[in-house]
């Protein structure tokens, strides 16, 4: 018995090492969203394309769509732009932008320079809609189902890997559901 006791420190070490090992592979920047499976918040905001007309939740697509939070100041947004444009060109699903805490002229210039994957972009100049969506910085991307419910959230830049392995499966799941 007392001989077994000698192994207690080794046991403690192993448990601790295992926990810390796991901790190495957790990304502290990716916060779990509490808004999954919650309906989109209500809003009434202009779009970058039509600054003089307010749109609301009712004007969003009635089919599954992608909601992408972006800004002209945001480098990762530029990085993921080709992937989103390709998806828009292939008619994978409609992509709506949320122009987050940006200036309208800069946003228009950005779309001019880089091309836009968005059907339109809701202009959230003061970040109020962003707060309701639990956004903490562009880019963030939501998969919304046909009923306007948030089904998936991707934080940070979308690269080909995350598009293939995370976002596309989420889109397909939501689409398959809306067909039934």
């Amino acid at each position: 018995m007392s001989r077994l006791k000698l192994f207690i420190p080794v046991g403690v070490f192993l448990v601790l090492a295992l926990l810390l090992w796991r901790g190495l592979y957790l990304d502290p920047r990716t916060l779990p969203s509490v808004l999954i499976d919650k309906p989109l918040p209500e809003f009434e905001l202009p779009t970058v394309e039509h600054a003089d007309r307010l749109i609301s939740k009712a004007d969003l697509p009635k089919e599954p769509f992608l909601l992408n939070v972006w800004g002209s100041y945001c480098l990762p947004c530029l990085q993921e732009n080709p992937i989103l444009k390709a998806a828009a060109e292939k008619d994978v699903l409609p992509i709506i932008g949320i122009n987050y805490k940006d200036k309208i002229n800069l946003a228009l210039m950005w779309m001019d320079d880089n091309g836009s994957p968005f059907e339109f972009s809701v202009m959230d100049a003061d970040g109020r809609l962003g707060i309701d969506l639990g956004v903490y910085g562009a880019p963030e991307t939501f998969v919304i189902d046909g009923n306007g419910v948030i089904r998936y959230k991707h934080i940070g830049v979308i690269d080909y890997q995350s598009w293939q392995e995370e976002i596309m499966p989420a889109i397909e799941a939501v689409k398959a559901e809306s067909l039934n």
Partner: protein
Amino acid sequence: MTTPAAMTNSRRGAIGSVRILLQLATLVLLCLTANAWSAIDTFEFENDEQQHRFRTLSNEFRCPMCQNTSLTGSGGGVAEDLRREIYLMIVDGKTDEEIKQFMLERYGDFIFYKPRLMTETLLLWFGPLLFLLLGGWIVLGVIKRARPQEQQAVVLDDADQERLRKLLAGVDRLNRIDSPDEQDKSDNR
């Protein structure tokens, strides 16, 4: 001898350099406080109590973007927006509980610096107590073991007694060799 005109000139020069020194000192101080100033907003409160609540709340929430700073200390865009929301809700007459609920609904438990007490956070809350108890238990064990055991009369049989006598005799001999006067004797020999 300096003329009165020259004296005023030199005094003016002295005052000028003092002023420059003061300006430099102010500049240095400003640079030092720049960090503290970065997160000051111009909110107008109706009373001190509201302002106090605003400060307390902004300190209790964690900035989701610049993790490990509170909303008060963060210069991040979203922190600025959240401080504004807190301000608006306070002025709007919302209670602290309602404001916390607002944050929780949007940003989840992460937003609280002080985690709420629930099953998932039990270990977080009471882990230290657990370790303290464990440590106390170990220390008690060590102390108990270190305490001298109660002496019991040792009963020796004849053979043991003989061995002991021999051993003691050996120690005695050794002692005699080690002692200095014993060595002196051997030197004389």
